[in-house]
């Protein structure tokens, strides 16, 4: 006995505390009082830079304080100091996983103020829908892939990120930039689609369909995946409506709301696609809704490729259209117009407008107050991530700390959009 005691005291001397084996029964019990745990702002399993202060009873979360704002970039205030065209790069950085949709949303808001909405050429609208749906795919692929990875399924992550990269490569061909496209302009687009785009896209979509079969095979019936997702972070239909949830989260809860169907814009009325709905509103339904939306995106893209007409990519209106470079350098009229567009900005008549599109995470709205100059008097963005994040505290309540990961993954908070 004496020897044991010596070893124990020696261990305590070295460790600076008692070794686990040497603790008495009362000492090894979990403390009965609540504990505060800090998750984030930089946490490997957190999407974006957000901090949650958790109060836990053992592993169970009894209280949480979600604190966004670590990525605040001042989108709305910055926009007041930039011309309407200069805002496009800022919108890229809202939801940076689907920047094209943000571009389109901003352009539509300015076009509404200028009364140009009905005059946008058909080809432009088709291209806008094509790039928007490609962006929706990159958004969903990232969300699903990353969430699976955080639950231990690394292969789907690699497969989906590879698929996303194929789409990014195509978007890079279209716009010149892999991530921050700034491709859409007020009244049209920066440039036309590259040569053989339809072939490239068809080939890519075929490949992605194959990947999706594989990933679904790996995840849908996977015991671990289902256990971690099913019944976790459930939200009722009434709650989803009351908290202002939109997009895949609201649809997983059974709210039949998709801007593309309910307030159709662009050429969506002419396209055939279904809006998937969930029943339980838990993480598994959110996953399934996103997977189905990916398939619908592919369906929309194939239709667009079939129907896209030839035509101009910019509305013919000197108020918004830059003159061709050749004219700019050779005639004073075009030179002045070019100068005015670049330096003073597009002259938007006084008024206010709100437009909203179906973003990767749901209704993405832009509200602009114009005062007749070349820059917005006030700009506001209704970003779905911000609304969704506000429900996070309620969703993780009474779950285990480990459940924060899939719940947060499926909320798909994008910092750039949430902290606008």
């Amino acid at each position, binding site marked *: 006995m004496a020897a044991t005691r010596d070893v124990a005291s020696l261990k305590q001397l070295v460790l600076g505390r008692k070794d686990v084996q040497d603790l008495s029964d009362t000492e090894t019990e979990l403390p009965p009082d609540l504990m505060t745990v800090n998750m984030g702002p930089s946490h490997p399993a957190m999407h974006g830079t957000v901090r949650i202060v958790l109060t836990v009873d053992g592993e169970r979360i009894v209280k949480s304080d979600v604190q966004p704002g670590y990525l605040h970039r001042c989108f709305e205030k910055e926009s007041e100091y930039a011309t309407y065209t200069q805002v496009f790069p800022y919108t890229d950085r809202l939801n940076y996983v689907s920047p094209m949709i943000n571009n389109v949303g901003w352009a539509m808001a300015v076009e509404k103020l200028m009364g140009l909405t009905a005059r946008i050429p058909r080809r432009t609208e088709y291209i806008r829908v094509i790039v928007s749906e490609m962006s929706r795919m990159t958004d969903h692929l990232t969300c699903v892939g990353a969430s699976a990875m955080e639950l231990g399924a690394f292969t789907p992550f690699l497969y989906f990120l590879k698929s996303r990269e194929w789409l990014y490569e195509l978007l890079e061909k279209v716009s010149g930039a892999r991530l921050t496209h700034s491709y859409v302009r007020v009244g049209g687009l920066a440039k036309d689609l590259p040569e053989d785009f339809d072939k490239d896209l068809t080939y890519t979509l075929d490949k992605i369909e194959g990947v999706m079969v594989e990933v679904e095979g790996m995840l849908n019936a996977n015991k671990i995946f289902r256990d971690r997702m099913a019944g976790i972070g459930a939200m009722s239909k009434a709650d989803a409506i009351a908290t202002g949830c939109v997009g895949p989260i609201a649809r997983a809860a059974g709210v039949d709301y998709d801007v593309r169907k309910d307030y159709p814009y662009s050429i969506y009325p002419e396209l055939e696609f279904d809006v998937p709905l969930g029943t339980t509103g838990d993480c598994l339904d959110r996953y399934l809704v996103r997977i189905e939306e990916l398939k619908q995106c592919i369906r929309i893209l194939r239709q667009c490729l079939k129907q896209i007409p030839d035509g101009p990519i910019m509305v013919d209106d000197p108020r918004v259209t830059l003159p061709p470079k050749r004219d700019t350098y050779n005639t*004073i009229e*075009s030179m002045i117009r070019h100068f005015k567009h670049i330096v003073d900005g597009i002259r938007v008549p006084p008024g206010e407008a709100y437009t909203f599109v179906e973003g990767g995470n749901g209704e993405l709205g832009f509200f602009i107050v114009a005062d007749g100059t070349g820059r917005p008097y006030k700009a506001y963005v209704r970003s779905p991530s911000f609304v969704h994040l506000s429900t996070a505290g309620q969703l993780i309540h009474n779950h285990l700390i480990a459940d924060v990961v899939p719940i947060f993954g499926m909320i798909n908070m994008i910092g750039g959009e949430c902290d606008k």
Partner: protein
Amino acid sequence: MSTTSGPAAQPGQSQTPAPPATAPDPNKVTLTIDGQSVTVPKGTNVLEAARTIGVDISAFCYHPGLPVVAQCRQCLVSIEKNPKLQPSCQQSCADGMVVHTTDKQSTLARQQMLEFTLLNHPIDCPICDKAGECTLQKLYFDHDNQDSRVDVPKVHKAKVVDLGPTIVLDQERCILCSRCIRVCDEVAGSHQLEFAHRGDHEILTTAPGAELDNPYSLNTVDVCPVGALTSKDFRFTMRAWELEATPSVCNGCATGCNVEIHHKHGRAWRLVPRHNPDVNDYWMCDEGRLTYHELREHRLAAPTVDGLPAAWDRAVRAAAERITAAGAAATAFVLSATASNEDNFALARLAASIGCKNVFYAGKPPVPGREDGKLRVADVNPNTAGVKAILEALSHEPRELGALPAEIRLVVMLGDILPVDADRQKELGVIAVSAHERGPVAQAIVALPAAAWAETSGTATNKQGRVQRMHAAFPAPGHALAGWEIVVRLAQALNAKLAWAHAREVFKDMTAAVKPWSGLTWAREARPLALRFAGSRG
């Protein structure tokens, strides 16, 4: 007497006549413009009447401060019962007149006149100083915006014509509006510019035997609706649309012309006149315009004690020790006609609170040849009237510094002018609160760096007795502080009870103390106006 209004007044806006009276007034007429009824004083032209209701009839040659010539034909409007389009700048308003500015005929006339004006205009925007504030650019973009139909070579003219000491002319850019000719004739009163030749060979040039060298020549650059006339001082230094404008008052002489400081990157790039019908109308003199250079010359950027840089605390303590050692009887306080009312009032108060009776004021000596009966006057100090009023009110008589009493050994002075002879100056100890390090400041025992007029909020009183407001456009260099703030620090070191925290508090005490100024109010600080988004103001 009143303080000038806060925000930068724009030439077009400040013209607005009084709102229409309800009772029919024999001196007023009521007419209809684009369906809106408008009542204006008799003799108002249609173009001005339209501006009062926000209808912008395009015009090049019309300027509210110049005689009407109806030369550019850009302001044509249709008036009912009138078979032809009429130039609205020349057409007086009449009762019952019905004017249309947006009907097909006048819209087409505007477009065609712009196309005509642009026929031979060079493609110079990227290298033109006026780009961004050019009336031609603005009117084309607002009223025409059509593509070019020209398929013949443009007529070329001289690009660099030296018109005189201050101005360079580009004859290609000139659209022959004659505003500059009228400015020389009417404002400066000397006929120095003329048109020569005819048709598309017509050019602007100097009158036979003349040179554009009148003291108001740079006003021609302001009124030029394009970049034909450029100031040698400003050209190729800064893009106009990058500048920000802060309203202020010229510190060049006792007239106190209202100006805008155009600044960027913490320095002024030019001064332009701001409309004030009671002081300078739309104009200012060339000499005043160039006073902004002084803001960057010989500046004192840090406090000095015995000629060496020192921290504020040490410098103020050293100054206070000197004043205490010399005693009130042997100390003189010299106010400055070049400093603001607030700075002067603060120093005068300090003198009173330490019981010093030797209070004087000094300023730059008058320049007799400068007086021309227009804007320029002999007194080249911006605030002579102000410093006199302050000294009178504080029951010192306003003594201009001539010979210092023999017992004075220490001088506490504002500014950098001390008109005493060199021998006497050597015997004196000088404590200077000054923006510039020159003259007596360079020899001072303690020199305290003050903000110059463009760098701090304050007021100056011009020769008419108008108290006019100057706004801070950019920060003062180095460690410089506002003059009144330095006085407050000095007062604290001397245990005198002066505790102002803002220029507006000094102003409030000052207007309470100086009878003629009672009732004046302090306007809100003006925010710099970014010219890029102010619309072209040609």
